[in-house]
């Protein structure tokens, strides 16, 4: 009798829990979206915004002097952040008076990342470069850094604006969204269905891109059907499993897979190859060229939308140096970044790297990261 009652209680809880939990998970964040015009119309120039970043208080004057930086990416050990790290170190070597250490957690956990930053703050650095796992959770730690006179520059994934001085944005969020959706439509058509494999629903950059992608798709291709978003947490095996699950679940209905992280895209391509759906399911996403070379060569993947992560890291170091040397102040409209030339300032305190870069069969062999 007791056992039966327990079983009933358990079953009810599970049913209620599941029913409550069911519902569309779209992986987008709640911030405002700003979709670009459809097709090839030129985007309107973004309105100039006031500077909204934080300020380092009483930072020591190190104009022209050597500085020590620490780079704390979301996690270490994946190709994308190896590439940004390479860019950061290349720029440091070029500048000559910058010393950088790249260190970070081996899993994309915000708690671990905060601990890493904290240890380096105690050790004493002149600046922190970061790519955050969570824009709000990392903010108290970064504000602590600013209050100690340590400069803070973000790249790849933002934090709350007043927790960092500047953020190097690889591309406009709506620009990436447009490039991704346009690539998919070019490959499969405007009335098909697609799925998304992302990292987690709270990772700042992925959430922004997904929000912009759904806004842009709704505006320009209303017939494009969005089936599901799945989480894969920057884990290779999980990404592969999730992509395979999507392929098996939707079968013929699925025409495209977006990989939102550099781990998800090769894993999705592998899942599509192993399911023998190359050519029938398009795989579009961001990834490092090396990881995608076999799939692009096999014609399974036609285009990889990305920016150059090496350039991203490179720009971040130059921005940091410019801040320390007093060349980049609030209200500036551009900054010099070595071989990248002049980079525009957008959204008040963001430095734009440039337009998204598309790797295809023709140019992917020119890159090695």
């Amino acid at each position, binding site marked *: 009798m007791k056992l039966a009652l327990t079983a009933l209680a358990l079953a009810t809880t599970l049913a209620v829990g599941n029913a409550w*939990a069911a519902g569309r998970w779209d992986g987008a964040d709640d911030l405002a979206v700003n979709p670009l015009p459809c097709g090839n119309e030129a985007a309107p120039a973004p309105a100039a915004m006031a500077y909204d970043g934080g300020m380092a208080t009483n930072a020591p004057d190190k104009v022209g002097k050597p500085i020590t930086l620490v780079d704390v990416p979301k996690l270490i050990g994946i190709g994308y952040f190896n590439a940004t790290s390479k860019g950061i170190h290349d720029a440091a070597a070029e500048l000559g008076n910058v010393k950088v250490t790249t260190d970070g957690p081996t899993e994309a956990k915000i*708690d671990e990342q905060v601990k890493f930053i904290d*240890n380096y703050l105690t050790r004493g650095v002149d600046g922190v470069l970061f790519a955050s796992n969570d824009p709000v959770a990392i903010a108290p730690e970064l504000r602590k850094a600013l209050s100690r006179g340590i400069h803070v520059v973000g790249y790849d994934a933002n934090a709350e604006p007043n927790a960092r001085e500047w953020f190097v944005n690889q591309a406009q969020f709506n620009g990436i969204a447009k490039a991704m959706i346009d690539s998919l439509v070019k490959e499969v058509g405007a009335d098909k269905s697609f799925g998304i494999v992302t990292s987690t629903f*709270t990772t700042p950059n992925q959430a922004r891109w997904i929000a912009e992608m759904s806004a842009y798709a709704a505006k320009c291709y209303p017939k494009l059907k969005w089936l599901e978003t799945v*989480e894969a947490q920057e884990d290779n095996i999980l990404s592969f499993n999730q992509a395979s699950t999507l392929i098996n679940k939707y079968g013929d209905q699925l025409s495209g897979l977006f990989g939102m992280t550099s781990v998800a895209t090769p894993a999705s391509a592998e899942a599509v190859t192993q399911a023998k759906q190359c050519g029938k399911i398009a795989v579009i996403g961001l990834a490092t060229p090396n990881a995608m070379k076999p799939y692009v060569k096999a014609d399974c993947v036609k285009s990889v939308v990305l920016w150059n992560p090496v350039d991203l890291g490179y720009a971040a170091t130059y921005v940091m140096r410019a801040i320390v040397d007093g060349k980049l102040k609030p209200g500036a409209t551009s900054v010099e970044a070595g071989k990248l030339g002049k980079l525009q300032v957008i959204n008040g305190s963001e430095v734009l790297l440039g337009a998204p870069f598309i790797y295809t069969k023709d140019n992917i062999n020119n890159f090695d990261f």
Partner: protein
Amino acid sequence: MNSTQTQPAPRGRYVPPRFRLAAHESILGIILVVVLIALGFLTDRFLTVDNLLNQARLMAEVSLLALPMTYVIITGGIDLSVGSMVGLSAILLGYSWHNWGFPLGLSIVFALAVGTLAGFANGWFITRIRVPPLIMTIATMALYRGFAEGISQAHSVRGYPDWFYIVGQGDALGVPTQLWIVLVAIIVFAVVLKRTVYGRALYAMGFNEIATRFSGLSVDRIKLLAYTASGLMSGLAAFIFVSRVSTTRSDMGMGMELDAIAAVVLGGTSIFGGTGSIGGTVLGLVLIQLLKNGLALTGVKGDATIMVIGSVLILSIVITNFAQRERYADR
């Protein structure tokens, strides 16, 4: 004719359990002092009041989890679901405040209640339905995490009023606020373990549960209390965590159960039950945290630090086994 076989005399001296543990704690204390001196020598940022207080702030959550974990492991059980209970409590703290419109104080109490209930559910199944603790808590580890992710739809809740952050990010009398909470918890748990009937019963259950049951002690109620305490502390740890990082995430607490268990085992609590102390657990917590921090300050990178922690764990257990040397013939 009495041909009673007498037991062969135990080889070596018989060392009663309490002395065994005291020896382990002393050795642990010596290792801790050695580590402190060595790290303080290698970097001058390590042995500063600021740094040490900061480390105390960062390890508050795992400390709170390790205290009831000591009780649970002493009884011979284990609780692998504490990390997921932290995640569930944290999510419900934010969700009830943001989506259900609870006043924030009520949300905090609600989060504690959720943690307690989750721990109670663990304990109930383990005692009434006789599910082995390992299996039950592995199951609830997945179940509670699933609830957290399903209820939250992976949305974070942020934007709490300023007073909410005092616990996680503020100071009281110059010391991080959560440190006071942890100190009170340590004292309560230590006193209960050493000075009350309940504490003695825990040890008895760890040694021989059947004998304890037949001695008239309410074994089920004692176990239930231990697992419920585990849930309550998870709720409290969740509150401190959310206050510290100013947001709720459904992946909070992942992996914390292993940190807590490592500290408890390092502190001398036998995984088979029967021995253990809060003092040892605290030593274990401090040693692991200071090692991680000190090594990072001397420039050792993240992945190498993990290796060192593992080696220290193995080394300290080997040293204590070696130093005690007593082997009971048929134990």
